[in-house]
C-alpha cells in the first residue's frame, strides 16, 4: 500500500482547507477569471474527498472515482461557458472586474 501510515483524516483536512481557500478566493478576487480559478480549487477539493473515501472506506466499488471523473468533465463544461461569457463581458464592459459588473441591483 502506498498510503500506509497516512490516516484518512489527513486527506480530509487537506481537502477541507483547499475548499475554504477556494471559497476565500471566490469572495475576494476581483478578476472574474480568478474567481473561476477559485471554483476549480473548490471542485478539486471535492474530488480529493471522493477519491479518499473511495480508497479508504469503500474500495469495493468505484463510485467515488467515477464521481470525480464526472466532476472533472462538468468542470470543463462549466469553465468553457464561463470563459465565453467572461469574454463577452470584456467586450461589453471593457473590463473583467467583478465590482464593475453591477448594473442591476436593489
Amino acid at each position: 500500500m502506498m498510503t500506509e501510515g497516512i490516516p484518512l483524516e489527513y486527506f480530509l483536512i487537506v481537502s477541507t482547507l483547499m475548499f475554504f481557500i477556494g471559497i476565500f478566493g471566490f469572495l475576494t478576487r476581483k478578476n472574474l477569471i480568478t474567481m473561476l480559478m477559485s471554483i476549480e480549487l473548490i471542485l478539486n477539493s471535492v474530488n480529493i474527498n471522493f477519491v479518499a473515501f473511495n480508497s479508504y472506506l469503500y474500495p469495493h466499488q468505484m463510485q467515488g472515482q467515477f464521481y470525480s471523473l464526472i466532476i472533472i468533465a462538468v468542470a470543463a463544461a462549466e469553465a468553457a461557458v464561463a470563459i465565453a461569457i467572461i469574454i463577452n463581458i470584456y467586450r461589453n464592459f471593457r473590463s473583467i472586474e467583478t465590482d464593475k459588473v453591477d448594473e442591476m441591483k436593489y
Partner: protein
Amino acid sequence: MNNQVMFFLLSAIILIFSVLTVTTRRVLRAAVYLLFVLVATAGIYFQLQYNFLAAVQLTVYAGGIVVLIIFSILLTSHISERAPRASAAKAALSALATVAGAILVLLTVLQFNFTPARLEKVEPTVTNVGRALVSYKEYGYALPFEAISILLLAAMIGAIVVAKKESNQEKQK
C-alpha cells in the same frame, strides 16, 4: 515512511499554491499556481493508485481547463497588469467567514468515526474502469457517461453562442 513524506510534500504543494492562487495579484501567475495545485492533486491520485483518474486530471484539468484559462487571460488582460486588492473590510469579512467555516467543518468532520466497509476491493485498473464505464448494471456508469455527453454538447453550443462575434448585420443596428 516514504509514503508520508510524499503525501506531506504533495499536501504542502497543494495548500501553499492554493493560497498563492487566490492571493497573487498577477492573474497569469495565479493560473500557473493553479496548474501546480492540479498536478499535485494528480500526484495524490497516483499515490492512491487511481492512475486512470490521475491521467484524466492531468489531461483534462491541467491540460485543458488551465490552458483555456490562460488563453482567456491573455485575451482580456495585460501580462504586466496587477489585479487590484480587495478592500480591507471585505477581505477581513471573507477571511472571518471562511476561517469560521473551515473550523466548523473540520471539527465536524474529525469527530465522525469513519468505518471502512470490509468488502472485497475492486482494483481501479484501467480494465475495471473501462468495464464499469460501459456497464448498464448496478455500479455501471453507461448512463452518466451518455448524459455527460449531452451536457458537453450543450455547453459547447452555449459557449459558441455567447462568444461568437456578431455578424456585420447585427453591428449596424
